[in-house]
């Protein structure tokens, strides 16, 4: 049995500990917002947070989450109130949308660590997340916009 929490709820699962966290999240917990794209930490579509760190869940064995707090896109802000989600709407970022869960989860860590990220910070934090539709220019604008929102609101 492996126990951890997902989006604030605790789970205990009877699962092979070597199973990638991604498939446990998607298939056993039914949280399908986290996506499979490459299976080898190349594309970032599977990005989740473990204790606040961005983790590629496609290569992280579920055992790595033991006793820890996992946050998936469903836990970011289901009502779309997170500044990044608001900025993503303002900039009309997604096209097909498949990579956007991972983009948001990576950007959330960036914004927490660097509330006013530079373009270089964005390059560094977001280069692991591929978007085949080519939404990068809008993602960049949206991250800057979210940072402005946070600065203006004084809080998330």
């Amino acid at each position, binding site marked *: 049995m492996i126990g951890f929490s*997902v989006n604030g709820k605790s789970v*205990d699962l009877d699962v092979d500990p070597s*199973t990638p966290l991604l498939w446990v999240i998607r*298939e056993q917990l039914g949280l399908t917002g986290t996506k499979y794209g*490459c299976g080898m930490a190349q594309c970032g579509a599977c990005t989740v947070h473990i204790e606040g760190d961005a983790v590629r869940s496609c290569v992280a064995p579920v055992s790595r989450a033991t006793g820890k707090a996992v946050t998936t896109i469903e836990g970011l802000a289901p009502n779309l109130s997170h500044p990044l989600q608001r900025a993503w709407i303002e900039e009309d970022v*997604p*096209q*097909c*949308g498949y990579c956007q869960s991972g983009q948001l989860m990576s950007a959330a860590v960036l914004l927490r660590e660097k509330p006013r990220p530079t373009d270089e910070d964005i390059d560094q934090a977001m280069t692991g997340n591929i978007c085949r539709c080519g939404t990068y220019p809008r993602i960049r604008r949206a991250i800057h916009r979210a940072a402005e929102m946070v600065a203006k609101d004084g809080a998330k």
Partner: protein
Amino acid sequence: MSTRRKRAATEPTGMERREFIKMSVTASGGLLLGFYVPGAAKLASSGPSANVFVPNAFVRIGTDERVTVIVNHSEMGQGVYTSLPMLLAEELDADWTKVSFESAPVDPKYNHPAFGMQMTGGSSSVWSGLEQFRQAGAAARAMLLAAAAQQWNVDATVCRTESGTVFNGSTRKLTYGQLVGAAAKQTPPSQVQLKDPKTFKLIGKPIKRLDTPEKLNGSAVFGIDVKLPGMVTAVIARPPIFGATMKSFDDSRARSMPGVRKIVAVPAGVAVIADSFWQAKMAREALRVDWDEGSMRAFSTTQMMEEFRGRAKSPGKTVRNDGDAASALANAAKKIEAVYEVPYLSHLMMEPLNCTVDLRPDSCEVWTGSQFQTIDRANAAKVAGLPNEKVQLHTTLLGGGFGRRANPQSDFVVEAVHVAKAAGAPVKVIWTREDDMAGGWYRPAFLHAIEGGVDATGNPVSWSSRLVGQSIMAGTPFEGMMMKGKEYDPASVEGVDDLPYAIPNLRVESHRADINVPVQWLRSVGHSHTAFATECFIDELAGLAGKDPYQFRRELLSKQPRHLGVLDLAAQKARWDKPLPKGVGRGIAVHFAFGSYAANVAEVSVTDGKVRLHRIVCAIDCGQYVNPGIIAAQTEGGAIFGASAALFQELTFENGRLQQTNFHTFPVMRMNECPEIETHIVESTEKSGGVGEPGVPCAAPAIANAIFAVTGRRIRRLPIRLAETEAV
């Protein structure tokens, strides 16, 4: 958050087209996580109801004021779930904040008006839906108006509509929701008057996409997210070489692995069916399959390109022949020849292929991100042994399409129905990234051998293009329609057969290569290579003439006002006449494709053989446009798609085996490599053209020409490998 609009999980009773099966999964800790699955669809025309007005197949209006637009094209990022509802809502005078979308079931009434089947492709959704969706909205509006006039006992002509409400004078009003019952009793009009474009409130505005919110909190349902009660998951061990066949397999270890339900031969290979994806994948790794490698076992793309070069030395089928290119070349003051080569490319959608099938004795339901609903349903029915009408195909969101999910053989659907026959339970077949990349149906590799000459004043007098590559139409249901009376595949030569430049002697020839590598349309199809070859060669001719590449094009396009329009727009916005910082070069390209005109100016620098893309300025003329925000997104995304191919992408084969497996060997442009991109849209009242694909073709030649400007080296092969290019 007023921009937030969600597809509702619950719809008015009796009229649900998208029933939701609510499921709870019990993890051993007792946590319940509910999730929703789009379920059995009913046609929008399944009958009237007291609380829903269904004026036609494309719209439904509820007493709750909700306007649901039924969209017959697939949403793969190009924005049809917004732009098509905009068309309908415009004529309906709907309250846009009440508008939502739904994907259409498979039915002839949702056929593409130009192509006669239900499908999404060819950058055609908006132009083909323009009349259809506007008419549907106008017809619904007329019925609501008539219903209100009847209630007030006034003539309909004295009433007006605005934002989901019918008004009579300034005091009397009825909302569309209040008119649902009465409108349903009206006879649909035989003719409707469409709005004067000057009065448009939605069309032409950068309206935000309706599908954004659900893509930001994990609630959007792509094919890979579908889950059914009792569902199992399968992966397939497919042949390692195209044309290889399975001789035997040994599953002695695999079949006893955890979660494995069944391992079974299917026409596509050997299917491993398990409780979960990971279990299926692990068992597949333990499976041993003995393949008869077949005739492609020695196939090599290096050798293939060598053969293409040989074939380009002899005449091909004539595609176009203006004047006498050979004699004009012989008499030219200066001449040049160049060979351009492009590789096989993978569509590489972020969502790998997948398909879910629930096969019952007398019915079959399929969930997948399809671009080819009519064909996919018919092919599924054939395998299921059922009549078409017993097969329901649910179109989920597509995590990218780029043409791959429009497969003439429905490969990813057909194999899933075969697996479902063996599974004895609803089954989802998932392709790994590696499966997807090795699965074929690529953009074909092509070679263009071009020679041309200019006269003493630098005017081009001769151009001959000879193309070698595989046909994508041959062997498909479209062969007859597309190749009628032609000895060549129009999709191979599109973009060179209509070369717009005023060159009096022009010859285009095509060689068809028959190779057992499955090929297919990839975003911008033939234009993905013809624009590269022609727009680089026109730059080479400009160099021969000693002229500026932009001015050289202008002179040759003096009778092509729309080419000239985008060319000038891109050049002006990029400030073509202003010098760049040292070490930065500028390149330009212009191309017509899918009814639209596009031009790019690229700015690059090169350091230690590495290309750095600084900026791409895009101009597009797609005629009368619907949503400039979406057009800009498609155009910038198209440029990135084209630039990715130009800079990074190549599929190669050795000993019949694909050498690339995943994003590390077939890279896609990343955030740190992405240039600044700006898009400028030409104001136009011309017929609407496409938007999804026209943004792709110009990127590669604009970048290649910019590299020449900064390095003096001509780029004649994609992807660009500066170490290999010759100095010219």
